[in-house]
């Protein structure tokens, strides 16, 4: 399939998590240049940069402060300085705290997850949108968990569901600039959503009876970023083995 991603510039957040890393590599294999970030994981960032440049595309990366709008702007500016524009945002929502039950969660911990996950993602969208508007083309993709549909850590449930609302709002406001905004809802991945206090995955339907792979999520991201997906906006595509149906 021709994705038309060759030479496009793609910003991927949280390369420290498996979905971020895998997506960055998938975009690189399509010939896209990468702007990579993490809020804390310098080691994963370095490793991802090496892997990606080895594929023959250009890449820059930075550790940034995702909790402050200026920190996010400076990070995006680094990408703009290097490549001139950013065409695609793949926002892997950062995990700000250990996932917990409501009964165990403090207000401070709750606020931190909401701030980094929801407001931090809003900062990211605001940082990349102006250059997309200027070029009349853009793709915003938020990679979120299933908690907002099926329950789980309440702060993650709220922040990730909120991102669906944000995505639909941006889709409505920026469609006229040929910018699409969508979510990918992942679920049923080993090490990603199996944590103490998680919604019991075992209680959900499991038509495919297996865990998903990071590649299966990044393939969906590649498709949503491609030219052919230009009429898809405001949606949340689930990549979850059928563990829940919308």
């Amino acid at each position, binding site marked *: 399939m021709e994705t038309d991603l060759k030479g496009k510039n793609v910003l991927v957040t949280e390369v420290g998590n498996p979905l971020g890393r895998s997506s960055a590599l998938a975009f690189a294999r399509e010939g896209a240049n990468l702007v990579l970030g993490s809020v804390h994981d310098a080691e994963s960032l370095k490793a991802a940069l090496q892997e990606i440049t080895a594929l023959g595309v250009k890449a820059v990366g930075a550790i940034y402060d995702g909790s402050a709008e200026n920190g996010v702007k400076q990070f995006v500016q680094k990408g703009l300085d290097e490549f001139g524009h950013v065409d695609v945002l793949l926002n892997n929502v950062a995990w700000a705290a250990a996932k917990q039950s409501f009964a165990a969660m403090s207000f401070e911990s709750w606020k931190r997850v909401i701030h980094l996950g929801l407001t931090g993602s809003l900062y990211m969208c605001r940082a990349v949108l102006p250059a997309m508007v200027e070029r009349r083309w853009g793709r915003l993709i938020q990679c979120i968990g299933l908690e907002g549909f099926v329950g789980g850590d309440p702060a993650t449930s709220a*922040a990730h569901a909120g991102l669906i609302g944000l995505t639909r709002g941006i889709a*409505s406001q920026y469609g006229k600039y040929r910018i699409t905004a969508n979510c990918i809802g992942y679920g049923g991945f080993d090490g990603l959503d199996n944590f103490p206090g998680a919604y019991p995955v075992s209680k959900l339907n499991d038509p495919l009876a297996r865990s998903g792979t990071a590649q299966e999520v990044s393939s969906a991201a590649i498709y949503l970023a491609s030219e052919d997906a230009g009429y898809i906006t405001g949606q949340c595509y689930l990549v979850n083995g059928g563990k829940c149906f919308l």
Partner: protein
Amino acid sequence: MDTGLKGKVVLITGATRNHGKATALAFAAEGANLLICTRKSMDLLEDTAHLAADQGIKVLAKQCDVTVEAQVSDLVQSGLDEFGRIDVLINNAGWRVHGDVMKLNMEEWQAGLDVNVHALFLTCKAVLPGMAERRWGRIINYTGNSFMRGILGPGTLKMATLGFTRAIAQEYGEFDITANCIAPWAITVERSAGHVSSGMTAVRLEGQAIPRRGTIAECAALAVFLASDKAGYITGQNYSVNGGAYFS
């Protein structure tokens, strides 16, 4: 229909007018006692309290900023001191954030998060332990159709409300506590001066299955049903009261 609400205790935030007031009066008509609050409009809240008390129920009306942890604890404690328990929590207080994503005022955004999202954490934190102990409870949060319509500010904050509601539904179902959302759309309400609603201006009644505006009483009736004993198997849902403007 016997709702089983007689003698139950219902906490409603933001009960000065519109949905909060209508909900308070609807529960009063069922014989439920009320704990109601407002951030600053005590005179309006007293009006609601008097009207509700006319139904022969007990009402405690308090001033409370639901975004402040200590004030929410005090509010709930005063309700427990008065009534011994809280059975139903209705999060109605809201704050509207509007505009283009690039032009959002971040202080307004924070205020929206505080009232629409953080306040829910605080009120739930304060009432859920007692509900779990008594193995019965109802959490009802007001949302709207904004996230179905792609209205950015309210859509984001109310979708966060829905996600949170489902987490509570999942975690507390084993205690026979349900958590649901009511999603009004195209309802006739009063707005404060200067508070325009982009949602309302976008309403096109002629395309709607029931081509008229709805009433706050029609939303309050759903709150009463969801709080009733009859609705014990409904949880994690977002029920629209929208004249069929949007099917989901």
